[in-house]
């Protein structure tokens, strides 16, 4: 059963793509609050194993690691099936893993478009389908999707990425309506340029354009994004549902 107070301690949070970047910061913030972690990462990673071991000892929590390649539907199906078999509860789901993809329209192949949708959208839907069934039985849960300002604001050459994030935004809004009767809240966070390796993949031009549009200049620290996620996962935000929270310095 879910705690009814505002404490997150003792809950279980499933986080995808938490071996680096924003996801890793979210993991750390949850761990410090005594939240048990279900980490879903692409492949075995010894550095991550050591990091998890340290978090477990420091914070007296459990961390369960699963592997899934979000580009492969079968791999995600297997992960959901293994999760069911583990009988772990899931109180919080953070659909964080994602890839950036760029290219002007004539240079965007259908395969590229399908791949970015497979990772940034279809797999998130597939995971949510499985996890929401666990939450429906628990009669409580919180789902937080990692969207992007790129899903709302237009940037040349970001059609495929932006469309996949726009899809996750619509998904967030629809699910917030569909799952509310089971006491499951669904929200999304939409960061602007955040200080992870993704900024390098986006390139200098995109960085400059984003900075030009931002009122507060500079890269967003991963901690700022993680803290919003923490707030949305807690009972302090119990009436926030179906929202897309921009972390963008004022664009």
């Amino acid at each position, binding site marked *: 059963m879910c705690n009814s107070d505002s404490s997150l301690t003792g809950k279980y949070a499933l986080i995808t793509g938490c071996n680096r970047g924003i996801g890793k910061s979210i993991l750390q913030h949850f761990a410090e609050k005594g939240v048990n972690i279900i980490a879903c990462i692409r492949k075995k990673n010894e550095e991550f194993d050591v990091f998890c071991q340290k978090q477990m000892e420091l914070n007296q929590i459990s961390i369960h690691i699963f592997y899934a390649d979000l580009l492969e539907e079968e791999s995600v199906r297997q992960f959901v099936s293994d999760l*069911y078999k583990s009988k772990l509860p899931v109180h919080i789901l953070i659909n964080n893993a994602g890839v950036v993809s760029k290219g002007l329209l004539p240079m965007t192949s259908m395969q590229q478009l399908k791949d970015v949708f497979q990772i940034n959208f279809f797999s998130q839907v597939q995971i949510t389908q*499985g996890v929401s069934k666990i939450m429906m039985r628990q009669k409580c849960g919180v789902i937080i999707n990692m969207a992007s300002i790129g899903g709302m604001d237009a940037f040349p050459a970001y059609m495929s990425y932006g469309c996949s994030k726009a899809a996750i935004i619509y998904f967030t809004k629809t699910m917030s309506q569909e799952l509310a009767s089971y006491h499951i809240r669904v929200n999304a966070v939409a960061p602007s340029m955040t200080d992870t390796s993704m900024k390098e993949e986006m390139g200098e031009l995109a960085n400059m354009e984003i900075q030009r549009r931002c009122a507060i200049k500079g890269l967003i620290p991963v901690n700022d994004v993680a803290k919003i996620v923490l707030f949305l996962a807690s009972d302090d935000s119990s009436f926030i549902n179906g929202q897309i929270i921009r972390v963008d310095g004022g664009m």
Partner: protein
Amino acid sequence: MTNKEKYNEAFCNAFEINQDQLNGLKYQGIKLWDSVGHMTLVANLEDAFDIMMETDDIIDFSSYEKGMEILSTKYDVQF
């Protein structure tokens, strides 16, 4: 409890009906077996048989009889 009894109980609990109403029962054939009721039924069955149903099977699950066919052929639940 036999598998048939567990199966029947999942239906009766989900739709607040009696055993004698089960034969021939179809999706959307009664008020409570709507899409929301369908999710409750699936959750009851998954709990009862310790399985996770695939989305395609949830969609195909169109009647009391069809459900038994799906569970026995795909999830090794013998009736």
